[in-house]
């Protein structure tokens, strides 16, 4: 009680954001009931017909729903892995550059693509990756047959993942660079004193110091495991690659948004949230157990 008297102004300061959280994050959760209704806007939550698990049944009854979920998982997981791994390695390499100006320049250049929208990038990629486009002309000078990157089921996922990593790795590197900057220089000095080579220093000081950060980034990213990137897929996919490229979000866009089937859209949203929550909880445990790191 005594502490409360002292700290009440801080509680009051917290109040607005708590109210906002309640108002915009918790109360709207009531809308989840839509997932179990044939929701009609003019009848509202109370008047719409209850359909039980009907909306979920549609999701799993479609002949292609397993394929779509599978596509989503594969694309999202591969993106997750490479978006963790590539920036990690890149940050280590960049950190070894001793010329600060060069380091900064490279850093800026690689994170610029992050700011391009997929609508624009989609148009550029379609041109660059065309069978007579820039990339294929380079490949053909090495004697490679033209590859139909965006229209071939064998290549589509590869193209999607590589282009996503290319777009995002610079941005994701920032966090790791920040973590690297936070390592105590005394550790390196001590290691040098003991005659450790640069490689040894990296292996035994740098990497262990940023593994916890990698664990956090990875854990937070796991929440997105059913988000394979609507903007990107929507701008790049086409009927030729539906088999390997159609994901939950593009599917929702076509069925729920275009047709105004809010109940169905909510059901899929709920399904995704539940899976994401389970994954976050699991990875939280894993991070605690193996990296001895508590996030919350």
């Amino acid at each position: 009680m005594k502490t409360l008297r002292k700290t009440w102004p801080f509680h009051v300061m917290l109040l607005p954001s708590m109210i906002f959280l309640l108002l915009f994050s918790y109360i709207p959760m009531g809308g989840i009931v839509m997932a179990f209704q044939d929701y009609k806007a003019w009848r509202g939550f109370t008047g719409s017909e209850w359909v039980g698990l009907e909306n979920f049944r549609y999701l799993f009854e479609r002949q292609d729903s397993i394929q779509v979920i599978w596509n989503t998982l594969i694309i999202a997981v591969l993106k997750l892995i490479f978006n963790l791994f590539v920036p990690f390695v890149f940050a280590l390499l960049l950190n070894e550059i001793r010329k600060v100006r060069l380091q900064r320049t490279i850093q800026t250049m690689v994170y610029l693509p992050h700011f391009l929208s997929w609508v624009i990038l989609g148009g550029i990629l379609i041109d660059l990756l065309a069978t007579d486009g820039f990339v294929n002309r380079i490949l053909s000078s090495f004697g490679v047959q033209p590859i139909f990157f965006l229209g071939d089921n064998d290549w589509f996922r590869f193209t999607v993942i590589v282009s996503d990593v290319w777009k995002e790795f610079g941005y994701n590197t920032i966090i790791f660079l920040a973590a690297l900057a936070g390592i105590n220089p005394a550790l390196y000095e001590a290691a040098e004193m003991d005659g450790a080579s640069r490689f040894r220093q990296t292996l035994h000081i740098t990497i262990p110091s940023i593994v916890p950060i990698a664990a956090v980034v990875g854990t937070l990213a796991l929440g997105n495991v059913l988000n394979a990137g609507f903007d990107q897929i929507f701008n790049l996919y086409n009927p030729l690659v539906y088999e390997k490229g159609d994901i939950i979000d593009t599917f929702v866009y076509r069925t729920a948004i275009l047709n105004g089937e809010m109940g169905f859209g909510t059901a899929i949203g709920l399904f995704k949230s539940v899976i994401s929550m389970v994954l976050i909880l699991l990875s939280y445990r894993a991070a605690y157990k193996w990296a001895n790191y508590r996030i919350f």
Partner: protein
Amino acid sequence: MGIKKTAAVLLTTVLTAATLAACGGGAGSNSNSASATTENAYKEKYDPPVTISTVWGIDPSLKFKNGESAENNVATKWAKDKFGIDIKSLWSVTDTNGAFATKMRLSMSSGQDMPDVVTIGDTDAQLAQDLIDSGIYSEVGPLFDKYASDTWKAAMAEDPNVWNPYIREGKKMGIPVLDYAYNHDYVLWIRQDWLDKLNMKAPTTMDELEKVMDAFKTKNPDGLSPDKVIPLSIGFKNSMNTWMGDPSWIFGAYGTLPQQWNKSADGTLQYGSIQPGMKQGLSKIKEWFDKGYIPKEAALWDENKTSEPAVAGTAGILPGPYWMSGWPLQDTVKNAPGAVWKPIAIPAGPDGKAMRHGTATTNGVTLINKNMKNPEAFFTYQNYMFDHLANPKADSEFDNGLFKGYDYDLDASGKVMPIDKIPGGYVNSVRYLLVRDGARIPNAQMDALLKLADGAKPETRLERDIANNYGPLTPEAAKVLMSQKDSSYPNMFTGPTTQSMKTKMDYLNKIESQAFNEIIYGKSPVDSFDTFVQTWKSSGGDDVTKEVNDWYSSIQK
């Protein structure tokens, strides 16, 4: 803790509370449109004035001047003076990202006052259907028959199908907003300079078309190497039935149009994509694809992309609407000096048949509230628009435009000045009117174009407008378009989405585009079309067909 700090904290809290309160209130109890009017029959001018309440979704590019707003502007003042009609806004919203539809749905579900008259555009077609089903809006058929003027009735009668989407159990529940006819019908645009240099004639059959495409590719008059030329620029990323770069006429030559409901010989509706003609069309496109007549990336190309090679001067033929000589084709000469595009008719198939998809002549619907006190007032207003604005005679009130000082102005000598010289800037004040675009008579635009194509001088406002604002070849293209009037087949299903469509149609569309693209790209044999048709039917297509025909027979009564 200092007093300053405490004050700051308190201030923050108070401000937040105030913001929240502002969010919560606002909407709600402002209206109650009960003006003390007695039962009013149709009048040219109402005295005492009557009220029409409405709501506005404001196009973000629409400007206001002289401190006006959607609620209160030159058009509302005009309506008050002219007809004694008070146009009262319940609310207005800038219509970005579907804000209008969202607000409309919200006010519907939260039980707020609904407007007397509201116009819903085609982009929100589902909303219009939902509003009709909500039971808030009244049957309009009898009102229209009783109050609409002859001009309006004649315009509405040009295409009797316009009512179809809004019929429930034989009752007309919404007044279609008419648009110009044939707007999305298409012609083939061809490089006439290439034809001339090759000494060839414009193709009229598929066989001739193939010869022309082959010549464009192998003996290109501009000296382009064969792999640089795209003889026919089409794309089907989104659909086989679209606008620019549309491939549907290729199937039309074999008697069907994909992705729409066509009338069959026995009078029922059948889905175009599963008809036998598709198979022939697909094998034709595949053949053209193998020969390099169409873009290698056609499956990845959307409509705008198909215009790129055309504008770059490397494409020979581009299907598209009649107005394309303005945008985008006008820019071709910058890249290929001497390029000349000409509109030609859709070539006929082996048995002399040509088909293209038609255009719906509506772009929305106007709904009238059940509780509206004076529905006839709306007709007073709209009749005047059809009689005086839609296609005004040379001496009409709106001959120069709608409102002086807004969408037109006169200089000292009484001549119309260029719109960029209007003091205070041009505003598209047609958008201030109760119904979007004021009033359009479907055939008026084509009639005007045909008149201009025959060399007549532009006289009426519509004719002058077309002559000044459209591409130079538009009248000629319109003539080509109209010469094939009987080949235009609009989608015959315009009703609300049926139950099986909601759950099945996306999957059916998906397997359809997958099957078609794989055939064209040679990943599956042409015969896999038959398997596709079987799957389509058994995966819900038969149910959809049945529901579509139930709807169709319900509106025939």
